[in-house]
């Protein structure tokens, strides 16, 4: 147990040291997400609000998008980081060196995910929290919800990130995962469109993305969107999803190691 924590800590520290602290980081970590957020906000603005998905006015919209983009950025940064780190570590040969150690593989994956999360999304999350405070979604009287909701997001993103990280070790061509996930995840998981206003086929697709459940739950917690939707079912949905993701991660991690021990491909790039 101590070793697991040690490995995770090592990955987190490494991640922090590894990232360049240049000013350009601000663009990709804060400015671009903010621009994306504003783009959607001002696209919706001119249209009247039909109250669909529980969004009555521009305040509701801001809160809706604030949570949506925060969740999406967390999840997406996991994908991006898993991909770029796996590429860099392959190239540097350090991936193979890490797999030369007896360190717990799952701890390595989750440590990387958590490290990237802490490192990369805090700035944009601050922006989103600011929006949530401005729209009175978060207030002094419900401030207790903040740690609950941040904890939930952190946990779900890390579990997701660990899975993506494990998948990225299958082959150096794992950029496929990026292409495969980027637009669909943004669209179907309800980042900027309420899932309830999707046609049936899209709603079915949305069930495939863990982010959907995560956002649903967060919005319910904060009373954004449709009132009266069932907390319990979302909670169960997210729980099942996380259990499935952990299961997949465990399985993939084993498979990947066997595969790489057979092919010796861990340092191909």
């Amino acid at each position: 147990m101590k070793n697991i924590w040690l490995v995770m800590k090592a990955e987190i520290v490494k991640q922090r040291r590894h990232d360049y602290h240049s000013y350009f980081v601000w663009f990709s970590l804060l400015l671009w997400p903010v621009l994306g957020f504003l783009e959607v906000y001002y696209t919706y603005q001119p249209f009247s609000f039909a109250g669909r998905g529980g969004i009555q006015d521009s305040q509701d919209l801001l809160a809706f998008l604030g949570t949506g983009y925060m969740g999406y950025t967390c999840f997406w940064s996991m994908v991006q980081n898993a991909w770029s780190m796996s590429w860099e570590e392959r190239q540097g040969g350090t991936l193979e060196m890490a797999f030369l150690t007896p360190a717990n593989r799952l701890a390595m994956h989750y440590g990387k995910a958590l490290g990237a999360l802490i490192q990369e999304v805090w700035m944009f999350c601050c922006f989103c929290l600011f929006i949530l405070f401005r729209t009175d979604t978060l207030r002094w009287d419900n401030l207790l919800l903040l740690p609950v909701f941040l904890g939930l997001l952190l946990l779900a993103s890390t579990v997701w990130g660990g899975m993506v990280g494990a998948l990225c070790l299958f082959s150096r061509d794992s950029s496929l995962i990026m292409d495969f996930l980027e637009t669909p995840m943004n669209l179907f998981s309800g980042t900027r469109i309420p899932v309830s206003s999707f046609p049936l086929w899209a709603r079915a697709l949305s069930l495939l993305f863990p982010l959907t459940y995560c956002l649903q739950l967060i919005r319910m917690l904060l009373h954004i969107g449709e009132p009266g939707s069932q907390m319990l079912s979302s909670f169960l949905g997210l729980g099942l999803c996380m259990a499935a993701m952990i299961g997949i991660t465990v399985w993939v991690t084993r498979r990947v190691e066997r595969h790489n021990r057979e092919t010796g491909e861990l340092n191909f790039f």
Partner: protein
Amino acid sequence: MIQAEHLSKTYVLRERNGLFRRKSRREVPAVKDISLTLPPGKIVGVLGVNGAGKTTTIRMLASLISPTSGSLTIDGMDAVKHHLQVKQQVNVISGGERNLYWRLTARENLRYFGNLYGLSGRALEDRIHRLLALVGLTEVQDTPVERYSKGMKQRLQIARGLINDPRYLFLDEPTLGLDILIAKDIRALILRLARERNKGIRLTTHYIQEAEELCDFLYVLEKGTVIAQGTKEQLRSLFQRPPKLVMQEPDLEEILMEILRQRAGGTAETDRAAGSAAPGVSPEEKTGGGL
């Protein structure tokens, strides 16, 4: 003791011939039916031309890749089945500048890998301190690796390879591309690791002199099979060549060593100076004759 019996490794390659045609399957037998032992405290050399299977053998023995067939035991433990447990006891150092995080400093690199081996706290810091002194990088321990010269990176790799205090060490061309002085220091270090610290070391190299100087036992590989093995004396006696009497001019290496020895008087130009003491050089030697 590492004991390998009838180890073989066949890589299976799947190659695409065009977008829509089926992938073809090709087998590359990299290592065929190799049996060998590596006792603690000994240095065992593996020689062979490019592509003979030296690196593949090392990667198999270090449990980085699994053998296609054959058995491998390390101190009596089945290393194929229990490869994670075995990893605590072995480490690999290969020539070149990879296998380190270039953006991290020497200390951060060692700390990271130390953590992965389950080391932490005082014990780890002490070990890092000792290893950095051993390879002569104490003064640059807080400089990012990307600013190191090749020799310094290579020395840091050696420190990384020793971070878990392995019982068995696999060296894959550890002096690749290094200058003669550093190479000499590294060779001295390898010898000490075997003699004083009782580590079983397996070395591949293309420098025959290096093998001759260090190895207690030699294997010669060719196309994945062992074609000759024995001690230096046994190998020499394979062919009854009479000893040669030669008049030899001092070779260029000697001259170069002399030039360097005379020039180096604590100048801060070479990376060795930047990296403080060279590995394997005792302080007396350094201050006395000056290296």
